[in-house]
Every structure is written in C-alpha cells, then in structure tokens.
C-alpha cells in the first residue's frame, strides 16, 4: 500500500474527498448568505433551516408522492425558494430600515420555529434517504475508490457555484443587482423595480440552500437539526472569506472543506474546531477577511 507522510493513501484521499464534499456545502451555503447579505443587508440565520427543509422536501417527495431525487433537485429549490419569497414579503421587508441586529434576531426566530415544527413531526433521529440509482456504485481510480454520488455532488456544486458567479458578475441582470447593492435609490430612479429584485434575490439564496439540502440528503441522514450546527460553521467560513466577493465565498468554502478533511487525517481531535481556529488566525492577521474590503 502506498503511504504519504506515513498515512495510507486510501485514507488520505478518502478524507480529502469527504472534505471536498463538506466544502461543496460550505460553498453553496456561504454563497447564498453572501448574495442575500449583498442585497438585503441581513444575515439569514434561517439559512440552515432552509437547507434542512430542502433535504426534507426530497425525503417527503419520495415517501409520499414517489418522486425521485432528480425531480426533488428541481422541485425543492423552487418550493423552498417560494417559501423564502413569502418570508421576505411577510417579515423581512418590514425591518429593512432597522438595525442589522433585528434581521439576525428575526431570522433566528424563524429558524427556531421551523426546526421546532419539524422536530415535532419527525423527531430528532436521522431519516435515511437512498442514493439515486443512476449514481450508485463507484469507480476505482487506482489510488482511491471514488463513489459516483460523491463525484456528482462535487461536480454539480462547482457548476452551480460558477453559474451563480457568472450570472451576478457577467450578465446584465447581475449588473442591475450589483448596482442596486451599491445604490438602490439611484437604480430605482432608472425605473428598475428594486423591491421585487430584493425579494427574488432572497428567494434565490434560499433556493441555493434548499438545493444543497437535497444534495446532502443521501450523504447525511435527513434530520431537523442538520442545518443548525452547519450554519454556525458556515458563519465562520463567511467571517474568514468576507462577504464582499462572490468568488471569495466559493473559494473559501471549498478550501476550508479540504483543510477540515486533512485535519481529520492528521489530527482528528481538532477536526470539529479547525475552521474556528482558522477564523481566529485570520482575524488576528487580516481582520477584514481574506477577500473582504475593510469596513
């Protein structure tokens, strides 16, 4: 067996793969947070609950309606995104002029409501969700075994992330969005419906979280609290990367996933805290974050 730094290569690459998977979710979630923060100036604490609802949508569609993973991949983001639009219209639009703090507290409250409701009906134990048939099995790459589903998750999230980046940074719609982030009043004066854009942006960010949830369902068990612990790590990722840059959020997400995976190999005790430790180091060296503009 081949060894690298005294670690069997199978174990090393296996953890790297797991790290990349986690990194995919960090990237998708922090991307959604960054997009929402850019337009709404709100840190969406409900993001974790919305990710969880995405996974549950996939689970319930299969259980009650018999619709498979591929349908869920399309339906869940639309459904949960629509729910996000509703949340924005009902609650968030009323607090736009208030201090940041209220947006954080309001979305935290919504997250508690959603998590509590799901715990009532589905308990706290994880519910299994099978890997779709087309992606079962895997292939031997010579140096490691690569399960097809995991390869798909990584590839698809990279595509989604860069499609989002492209849409925001390189298209006309994206340019309206960026302009409205800088100066909403002026953009409105040009006849663009900024409030509707804000609503749809929130729906889109939430949809990204739901999409991540569907992809996570076959890897982790589907459970009501799957989002709340993850969202805190994603907050740390966002602090490290800084929310000023879309590309920054993506790169930081993947990179931190890999670092976490490597930590699991070399120093397993620290694997649950390594991202927080990196956050501390970044705060000491570059307080504005790796990609952030200083405030």
């Amino acid at each position: 067996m081949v060894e690298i730094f005294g670690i069997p290569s199978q174990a090393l690459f296996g953890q790297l793969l797991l790290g990349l998977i986690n990194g995919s979710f960090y990237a998708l979630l922090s991307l959604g947070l960054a997009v929402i923060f850019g337009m709404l100036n709100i840190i969406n604490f409900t993001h974790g609950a919305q990710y969880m609802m995405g996974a549950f949508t996939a689970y319930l569609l299969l259980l009650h309606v018999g619709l498979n993973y591929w349908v869920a991949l399309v339906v869940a983001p639309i459904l949960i995104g629509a729910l996000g639009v509703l949340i924005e219209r009902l609650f968030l639009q009323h607090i736009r002029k208030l201090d940041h703090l209220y947006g954080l507290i309001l979305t935290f409250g919504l997250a508690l409501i959603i998590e509590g409701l799901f715990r009532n009906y589905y308990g706290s134990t994880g519910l299994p969700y099978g890997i779709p048939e087309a992606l079962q099995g895997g292939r031997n790459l010579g140096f490691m075994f690569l399960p097809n589903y995991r390869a798909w998750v990584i590839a698809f999230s990279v595509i989604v992330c860069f499609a989002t980046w492209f849409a925001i940074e390189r298209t006309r719609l994206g340019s309206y969005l960026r302009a409205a982030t800088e100066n909403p009043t002026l953009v409105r004066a040009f006849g663009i419906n900024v409030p509707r854009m804000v609503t749809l942006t929130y729906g889109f960010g939430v949809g990204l979280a739901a999409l991540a949830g569907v992809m996570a369902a076959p890897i982790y068990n589907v459970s009501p609290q799957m989002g709340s612990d993850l969202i805190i790590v994603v907050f740390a990722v966002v602090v490290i990367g800084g929310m000023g840059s879309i590309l920054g959020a993506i790169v930081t997400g993947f990179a931190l996933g890999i670092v976490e995976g490597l930590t699991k190999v070399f120093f397993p005790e620290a694997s649950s805290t390594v991202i927080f430790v990196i956050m501390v180091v970044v705060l000491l060296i570059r307080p504005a974050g790796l990609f952030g503009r200083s405030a």
Partner: protein
Amino acid sequence: MERVDPQILQSRRASEWSFGIAFVVMATLLAVAPFVAYPVFVMQGLCFALFACAFNLLIGYAGLVSFGHALYFGWASYMSAYAAKVWALPPELAVLTGTATAAILGVIAGGLAIRRQGIYFAMITLALAQMMYFFALRAKFTGGEDGIQAVPRGRLFGYFDLAHDGTMYVFVVVVVLAAFLLIYRIINSPFGEVLKAIRENEQRAVSLGYKTERYKLVAFVLSATLAGLAGSLKALVFQLASLSDVHWTMSGDVVLMTLLGGLGTVFGPVVGAFCVIAMQNYLAPFGQWVLVIQGAIFVICVLVFRRGIVGEAANALRVRL
C-alpha cells in the same frame, strides 16, 4: 463653574426616583417570592436575570450584539462546579473561580471580536462560542454528555450552610442584587455615557478623541464577567454544570430574555428572564413546541414589540426604567 441645564438635572433626578421605586418593588417581591413560589425556581430566574442584565449591558448600552454569551455563562458554570467538587473549594471561592474564568475568556474573545463591526461581530462571537462548546464536549474534566453532577454547595465563609435552600436563596438574592446595582452604576457612569455615544455614532466618538476599541473591550469583559458570575451561581443552585449551558441555544435564550423584557432598559432583562424561565418550565411537557413558541416570540418582538415589556411600560408611564 460648570453649568448644568436644569431640565437635564430634573429628568435625571426623576429617573433616579423611578429607578429607586422600581428597585424597592423588585426587592420586596424577591423577599416574598420564596414563600409563594418554589425557591429553586426563583433562584433559577435570578441567575438568568443576572445573565440577561450582563448581556444587556453589551447589546443595550454599547450596541454590540454578542450571539455567543453561553460561552461565558457555561464555562464559568463548569469551572465553578469543578472548583467546588474536585478542588473542594468553599462556595465563595468556587464562584470567584468561575467568574475569573469568564473574565479571561471575555478578554480573549472580546479582543478578537471587536476587530470586526456590526453583523460580523455577532457571527464571530457565535463561532467562538461554538468552538468552546466542542472543547467542552471533548474535554475530560467537563464530563462530556453527563456534565459535572452532584456539585456540593458547601459552607459560605465556612459558616452558612448553603445546602439549605433558604440560606442559598439569601446568598443568591444578595449577590444578584449587588451585581444589578453595579450594572446600574456602570450604565450611569461617565464610562456608560461614552458607551452610549459609541452605540449612537462610533465615528463621531472616535473623532472626539475616544479610543472606542478600548471602551468596547472593557464593556465586553464586564459583560462576560457578570455573565460568568451568573453561570457560577447557577452551577451551585442546581449543583450541576452541563453541555446545555454552553450550547448556542443558551445564547439564543439570553437574547430572547433581553429582547422580550426590553433592550436597553435596566429592569427589562429581569422581567424577560422570569417570563422565559416560567414559560420553559410550564411548557416543558409540550416538548418541541417550546422551540416554536420561543421562535414566534422572537418574530413578534422584532416586528411589533421592539421596546419589550418594560420598555412599553416605561413609555406608558413616561419614566425611565
């Protein structure tokens, strides 16, 4: 001679009066409470009231939103329980050990968190608290999932036996009221005025020559220390320190107590803490609905009830509470 606007002087005197009356009412209620309600419940309420007051010092007066205050409360609770049980320290030293731990953690976490402003500040405090939650989960001395159980209350100053609930009650009331008065004193000191100035407009405070970072750090450490005092007391009252004290839900609870009672009011956190604790106790049989109801209170408070209970009352009575 320095001239003070007579109107300001008058309003200050009026607010001192309203504070005095409200404080006497609170002290009287606390004197009667153990005969009406279950003393351990009142002690629990008092510990959380102090926790919420400490939190309010930061959010209500310095405008800093910490979403990780469970870190100081929980770790102080662990250290106080450990000192009382394993080192067999008397209760006064156990409480001091816990409080000192919280102060040290406050210096470290506060020093890191004030490097960023606004929304990032909240996220950093939350992430640091989560990191320390994982340490508590893994560390040997915290007892992992079991926590530190059967903590002896001991004899205060070698004389008062705290195992007796009545004696413990008097100890808790005295400490919490003293801390409460200290917080009132801090808020109304020149230091407190500078904090309020920073909350209203940090740029202007800087341009007036105040080293705002230093003020923010001191406020943060004070708040963490007092939260630690609350956690240490709580460990003795329940004779237990557990993971739930350091979990992020605890950080959420203290935000809820402060918001419900009234951000930036002196008595609000006390009222809020008793409301939330009573609700958690009475609704416990309904399981996860507590979470849903707490979430709903958050939403309602933010949308239509931002002054909180005491804030609304003070507004109706046209006084400052």
